[in-house]
């Protein structure tokens, strides 16, 4: 990379990148070995690793809208691994490791920025749970520390140490915490996958799933029927609806999640700061805008509308944490659709239908898992349904045997 920069910096013409864009769309084939429903980050990552590590390239990604246009573009781009359970920490830690190498791997800048994430504790109970999370994280090789108010003050001088009359007692300082450009992650994976022969079909909506003797054999789309060896469902906010086409009922409830950004200001906030007691997290993007996010809406809905109630309560908390923000103006606001499971962990792996693999229940934590989820889902598909150890605890049937993986307390803004 640096050599080419030097070379072309001194020459008059810049090399025209022939494969800068995605390949032009083709007709759908009659058969694919693997059909991936959903062209978001998880779907394209799965296709990428299938092609790269397993040599499986007769793959179609069917996307009803456009590449990365759903919840991949609606999250607040937080990358972290400071969860509570061993299963969770082990999984997300590998994701952080993969994220760190993605720009190099794609030869495309995903703007990965390792700024650290700070979660604030306002009660003794939270401090105790932070202690546990610190130890679990360290055990699995993550960089997480419990820090005191003085250290917090040094790290974030603009923070009000007594927000909403709830003094900050300690902080969970997750040094590996990072952010990246979410669109770029989807683009990088899509480019890498299509270069290796995977077909990405945008504006192609799956309208039905054909199941024969308990086994998936094909899908119907608005562009015709396709037969397939297996299906990977990675549709984020619409998991229950798509799974129902295959006759699968899921342990999921769907809620909107609202977020917003302010006008850009000078850089003042390096780490990502969140408080579960105030149900709010705050970060400053590379462009200077401040992103606010909180918990999901209080009741289920399939709608990306915004409500004044949630805006008001979220911003009241943000202004408590950083009082000077009261003078800023909001620039944009939006909502995503989140698939919440009752234990706040995802669902990955097998389904009651043979060769129909699920990647769902990603609630508010899907973006940060994109690389490792794609990698392990690819492994699952390539091995014909042998579940990799890493994702075995996240099988859907954990609910049938009451073996949940409880991550409720480890969400950035508890719900």
């Amino acid at each position: 990379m640096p050599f080419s920069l030097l070379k072309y910096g001194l020459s008059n013409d810049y090399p025209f990148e022939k494969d800068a864009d995605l390949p032009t769309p083709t007709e759908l084939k009659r058969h694919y070995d693997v059909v991936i429903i959903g062209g978001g980050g998880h779907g394209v990552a799965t296709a990428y690793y299938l092609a790269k590590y397993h040599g499986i390239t007769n793959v179609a990604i069917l996307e009803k809208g456009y590449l990365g246009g759903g919840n991949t573009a609606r999250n607040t781009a937080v990358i972290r691994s400071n969860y509570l359970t061993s299963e969770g920490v082990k999984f997300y830690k590998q994701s952080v490791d993969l994220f760190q190498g993605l720009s190099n791997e794609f030869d495309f800048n995903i703007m990965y920025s390792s700024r650290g994430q700070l979660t604030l504790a306002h009660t003794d109970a939270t401090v105790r749970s932070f202690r546990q999370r610190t130890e679990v994280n360290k055990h699995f090789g993550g960089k997480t520390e419990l820090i005191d108010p003085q250290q917090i003050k040094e790290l974030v001088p603009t923070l009000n140490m007594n927000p909403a009359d709830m003094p900050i007692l300690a902080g969970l300082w997750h040094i590996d915490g990072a952010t990246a450009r979410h669109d770029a992650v989807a683009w990088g994976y899509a480019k890498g996958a299509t270069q290796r022969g995977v077909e990405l079909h945008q504006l192609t909506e799956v309208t039905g799933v054909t199941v024969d003797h308990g086994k998936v054999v094909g899908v119907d789309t608005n562009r015709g029927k396709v037969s397939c060896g297996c299906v990977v469902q990675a549709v984020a906010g619409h998991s229950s609806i798509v799974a129902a086409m295959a006759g699968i009922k899921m342990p999921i409830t769907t809620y909107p999640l609202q977020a917003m950004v302010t006008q850009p200001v000078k850089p003042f906030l390096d780490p990502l700061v969140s408080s579960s007691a105030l149900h709010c997290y705050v970060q400053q993007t590379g462009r200077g805008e401040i992103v606010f996010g909180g918990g999901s809406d209080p009741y289920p809905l399939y709608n990306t509308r915004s409500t004044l109630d949630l805006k008001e309560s979220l911003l009241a908390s943000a202004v408590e944490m950083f009082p000077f923000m009261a003078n800023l103006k909001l620039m944009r606001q939006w909502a995503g659709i989140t698939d919440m499971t009752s234990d706040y962990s995802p669902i990955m792996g097998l389904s009651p239908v043979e060769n129909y693999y699920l990647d769902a229940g990603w609630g508010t934590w899907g973006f940060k898992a994109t690389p490792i989820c794609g990698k392990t889902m690819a492994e699952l598909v390539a091995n014909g349904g042998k579940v990799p150890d890493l994702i075995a605890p996240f099988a859907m049937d954990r609910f049938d045997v009451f073996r949940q993986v409880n991550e409720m307390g480890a969400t950035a803004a508890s719900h």
Partner: protein
Amino acid sequence: MKLMTCPLNGPRNITEFVYGGEVKEMPNHKACSDKEWADYVFYSDNTVKVIQEWWFHSPSGYWFIAERHTASDEILRTYDPSELYQDRVDFEQGENLQEGRA
């Protein structure tokens, strides 16, 4: 501000209410299998349509049922649970608990 009509108190701000989950047929908790109970507790159709759901008016401590569309968020009807349920389900103490006490 979105309003919801409480059958007991009339129209109120929706922030006064707490969502209590879909109205589902509860299996007999003494006789059903683990899978049936898990189905009842965790699984849901979770689709786009008008559903019946439990809501709680927090200031007055009153549970009722609402019919709401899960995409348009339109609340079509709210009513007292007595329209659907005549009896309370009796969760008498389990045998283990009684043994523990003795």
